């Protein structure tokens, strides 16, 4: 069985047509969230921090928060929303009475999560740029990191969602996985400067750290081509491995 892109796009369009109906309700919080973060932590806390990594604290926060926005955008789609479509609404059972196959469902959902992540991330980027925190035009390269972050967290989320029996388990995912990632992945402080030499690998394991480091490089806050290549490789390889795992689970859950 292979993926049929037209069928996957039909699944994508299902979600898009739902989103479009309430687009302004969905979009508005995306603009306010970054404003609150930048005002409170960037400017409020930042007033007590002279400089961070050679720049103002608000400017240090900006690239990381763009990636966090992409992470959140993808995560909501492939966790609660996907699980409800799968188990309560039985939307996929209806799709499977048509030529749509489980692989098409998976690809359509991933594409949609990446789309959603890109909308979130791009909104955040726009606000950050309006605050004058994105050095243009170099920082525009961070726009390419947003869908990568979306893909990574879509893959992680969908693999989790397809392997859990009950919706309550998502509170573990958000509280014990995404929240620590948010707090420790180089967004608020340079994690690797706080780790002892033997523990630097811990930082490399964290999925959010890689898109954040890429975005930081785009914002002109250091980095090297070698590190960037490793970050992209990490994102692609981990996403591919998790999607392969999710593919088996999707077939098992939709077909018996």
């Amino acid at each position, binding site marked *: 069985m292979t993926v049929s892109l037209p069928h996957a796009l039909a699944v994508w369009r299902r979600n898009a047509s739902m989103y479009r109906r309430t687009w302004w309700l969905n979009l508005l919080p995306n603009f306010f969230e970054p404003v609150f973060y930048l005002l409170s932590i960037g400017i409020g806390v930042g007033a007590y921090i002279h400089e961070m990594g050679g720049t103002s604290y608000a400017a240090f926060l900006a690239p990381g928060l763009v990636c966090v926005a992409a992470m959140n955008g993808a995560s909501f789609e492939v966790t609660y929303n996907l699980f409800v479509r799968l188990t309560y609404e039985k939307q996929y059972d209806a799709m499977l009475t*048509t030529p749509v196959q489980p692989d098409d469902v998976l690809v359509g959902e991933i594409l949609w999560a990446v789309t959603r992540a890109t909308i979130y991330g791009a909104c955040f980027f726009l606000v950050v740029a309006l605050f004058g925190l994105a050095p243009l035009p170099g920082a525009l390269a961070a726009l390419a990191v947003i869908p990568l972050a979306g893909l990574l967290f879509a893959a992680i989320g969908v693999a989790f969602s397809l392997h859990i029996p009950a919706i309550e388990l998502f509170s573990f995912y958000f509280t014990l996985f995404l929240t620590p990632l948010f707090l420790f992945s180089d967004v608020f402080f340079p994690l690797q400067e706080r780790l002892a030499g033997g523990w630097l690998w811990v930082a490399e394991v964290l999925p959010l750290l890689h898109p954040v480091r890429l975005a930081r490089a785009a914002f002109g806050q250091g980095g090297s081509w070698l590190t960037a290549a490793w970050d992209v490789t990490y994102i692609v390889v981990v996403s591919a491995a998790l999607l392969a795992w999710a593919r088996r689970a999707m077939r098992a859950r939709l077909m018996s």
Partner: protein
Amino acid sequence: MIVEARGVRKLFGPRVAVDGIDLDVAAGECFGLLGPNGAGKTTTLRMLYGVTRPSAGTIRIFGIDIAADPRAVRRRLGVTLQENVQIDALTPVENLRVFGRYHLLRDPALGARIDELIDFLELRSHADVPVQRLSGGFKRRLAIAMSLLNRPELLILDEPTTGLDPAVRLALWARVRDLRAAGTTVLLTTHYMDEAQRLCDRVAIIAAGRVIAGGAPAALITAHLGRDAVEVDCAAEDEAGLLAGTPPPRHRLRSGRRLIAYVDDPAPLVARITQQGGAAARGMIVRPANLEDVFLRLAGHTLEGGA
């Protein structure tokens, strides 16, 4: 043959859901799978359109092996699931648009087809009302419309009228007849015997995953029971006396004090009971025997009672 299933079995762990079923449905036919909840009807349907894999046996739809090319088969069939799966926030027209895309339908063909189906299922008055505000009858019409978007050659209906009021059931039966007149092959499951008798050319009665009888409804009734059923209140010990002097019934069923005698010609028995008078005569009902009686006879319990 549109549907050709041979020796189909399905096991879920140690539980046998379907236990060796053969089915043949010819082009243009309306075929009914009858049986109580849990008999294996839905599992059988799911295997036919390829989302449940048989543990054994082969299934060909339109002559195509469903295991080999499910996409090719599903392009040409439509399925109305037992539960309505719709997007509550969207209107019927919007739901049809979303669903039409799964068949890769595009405008203007998609719009034209939706328009036809809105008329065909009499959804026009509610075409732009969000599904969450529709009655059960309108939701069911929409579900059937969704399964017709691709002009299916085979329409599979899983309990199409369960829980609907009589007027809606009549309307939906009329639509099924229209589709058949236009050449669509129909395969439905139901536990309503009247539905099966009105719509189906042939039925298969399923209990505990096996076909226990099959054929045309009228033929099944005459083969197993007799044309009419005579129901009376009569204690078991009085039964022989009550029936004395009449031709022995083809079959007798008893439920407490209620006796049902199946006969091809009810006249002698009715005359005898009327002549005796009393409680038996007062509570007597003479009616045509139906598929429900056939099921009672073959499975030894009622359809609604479950397997």
